[in-house]
């Protein structure tokens, strides 16, 4: 996840190749138009269904896939599963070509949807109301191997980890739960600032750390969300769903 295997071709100001997956053609053309103004981003293909997406990604070999969550026949999670295989975020076979990075771009901000695609291996989650500029920035960030959080996603993750820890959450004190690899105080702080609407740069200024460190924290949170905390998140999502 954090091994930086993704920052190949676009690392030194090269072109970032983007693939669009969304079942609404109108929305795809809108994103295309928004990204067309960005000199460092090139849209190399698009797809409107899960099968098309899997085939298209295999052919176009993009750096970043902008992935819709709600689609017929399985949605974004199905695409993630078939492209990343059964072990999302696991050890990547070095013999295989580098896999694309996924950025979820959805109109839904329901907790179940967000958590599901993050767990399936998406490196970030932004909602469709994002501006073209912010979207381009998010694309470049995931291409560089960072995690991109929308404030809402940060809120969901905070909520998930707060619920996973027993009793009232103790601020600033790490909770030792053998089952749950919980967030460090610093990671919580970063998430909290993200949820308050801060950018990575603003968080870095606020906490007197470098932007790179903020990105590392966010990546770590994402890794924990995807792997270590899978049990707790499932439980949490289920309990939320049944509420």
């Amino acid at each position, binding site marked *: 996840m954090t091994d930086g295997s993704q920052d190949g071709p676009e690392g030194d100001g090269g072109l970032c190749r983007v693939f669009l997956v969304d079942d609404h053609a109108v929305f795809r053309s809108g994103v295309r138009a928004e990204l067309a103004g960005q000199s460092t981003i090139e849209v190399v293909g698009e797809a409107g269904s899960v099968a098309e997406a899997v085939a298209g990604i295999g052919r176009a070999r993009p750096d970043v896939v902008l992935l819709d969550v709600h689609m017929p026949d399985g949605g974004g999670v199905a695409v993630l599963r078939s492209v990343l295989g059964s072990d999302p975020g696991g050890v990547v076979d070095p013999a295989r070509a580098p896999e694309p990075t996924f950025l979820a771009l959805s109109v839904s*901000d*329901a907790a179940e949807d967000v958590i599901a695609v993050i767990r399936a291996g998406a490196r970030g989650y932004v909602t469709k109301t994002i501006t073209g500029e912010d979207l381009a920035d998010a694309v470049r960030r995931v291409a560089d191997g960072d995690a991109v959080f929308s*404030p809402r996603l*940060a*809120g969901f993750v*905070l909520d998930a980890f707060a619920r996973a820890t027993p009793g*009232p*959450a103790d601020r600033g004190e790490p909770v030792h739960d053998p089952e749950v690899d919980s967030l460090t105080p610093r990671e919580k702080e970063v998430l909290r600032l993200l*949820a*308050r609407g801060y950018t990575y740069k603003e968080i870095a200024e606020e906490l007197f750390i470098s932007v790179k460190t903020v990105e590392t924290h966010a990546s770590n949170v994402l890794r924990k969300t995807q792997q270590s905390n899978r049990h707790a998140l499932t439980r949490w999502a289920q309990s939320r769903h049944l509420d």
Partner: protein
Amino acid sequence: MSENATGPASAAAARPVPPVAGPTMRPLAVPAADFRWYPQLTRVSEGSVVAGVCAGLAEHLGVRVNYVRLAMVLLATLSGAGVALYSALWALTRTAPARVGAGRVDERERRRGMALVVVAVAGAVLSFMVTTATGLSVIVPVLVVALGAGLVWQQYDGGGRVAPRSVFDWARVTAGATLVVVGLAVVVLGQVELAALRSSLLAVVATLVGVGLLSVPVGLRLWRSLEEERAARIREAERSHIASHLHDSVLQTLALIQKRSDDPGQVARLARRQERELRQWLFGAGSRMSSGAATVAGAVEVMVGDVEDVYGLRVDQVVVGGDGPVGDAQEAVLGAVREALVNVAKHAGVDTADVYVENDGRTLSAFVRDRGSGFDPDTVDGDRHGLAQSIRHRVESRGGAVRVRSTLGRGTEIGIEMPLEGE
């Protein structure tokens, strides 16, 4: 035989009236079966003594229920014609839907009705015996079977209850079934010799097994098609539910937007409000919004929606932590957040803001952030100062704290912390 709770004088007035609304107006609320241009004979479920046949007839014909009962009793003495008529009407008519305000019959009327039932049955039996010269040995088992069948019928009649629930229901069904079996057994055993009993029992069992084997596929098929039909009906109801919701919300808004396409502010507001409503309908069902403003998360959503509608501000809200009821402390925080959002809309010169609310069990914290013009907290003008005071006063009078951070050109963040007691 049966009574109507309404007095005799109002019986005619209480006749069922066909619904006035045509079926196209409210397709879901009025099932097609209920709509008729002519009054339909129905039984009266509430306040019936036996099955509500007499009360239903009285309502239908517009005569007093006592006359109907007496007519039934007289008919019953014609070799049981009245009893047969009553049973036929019982079996063939539907129960009228329960009406508001109609209670159960009082005890006196019930007793009188029961007495009439006894008179009718006795009259029927006697006249039947006299006219056809049959002995009591035949009549009594038939009566027992009829009584048992009546009890079971009554259980599975009105109310739509299929499975017996209370002890009384079970007792009634059991008693009815026992009476039927005993009555039939007396008849059968009276006719057959005990020596032939074994072979006849075998024959009965064999017949039952044969019939069962033959009817299983038919029964299964009937059951399956019934299930399919039910599923289709549910799907159809769901579809028309969705259609009517979209019609009432999204399509209306789109029509409005087309009309107002020259006013971008209004269009944005309409679209935003519709988005919020639809989102809440699609994703928030049963959790936050449907509980209204009863919880903190719900109250934040309602309050934010309100500000968005009134001021055209777009607010991204994140609510984290245990959701709880809105008490005084929570209300103060929410009021302050609202005030801060209004400030953003009026003074910051931007149309977006972020709201973050967190409840960690001991403290309720809220942050309102914008990326607008910002100000220097030391040199605020009177107007600004007053509003900040209204936020401060609200929160600090309840033991909370407010922190305002603002940088010229980079926006403002207002942080509110409120300790929670007793949690």
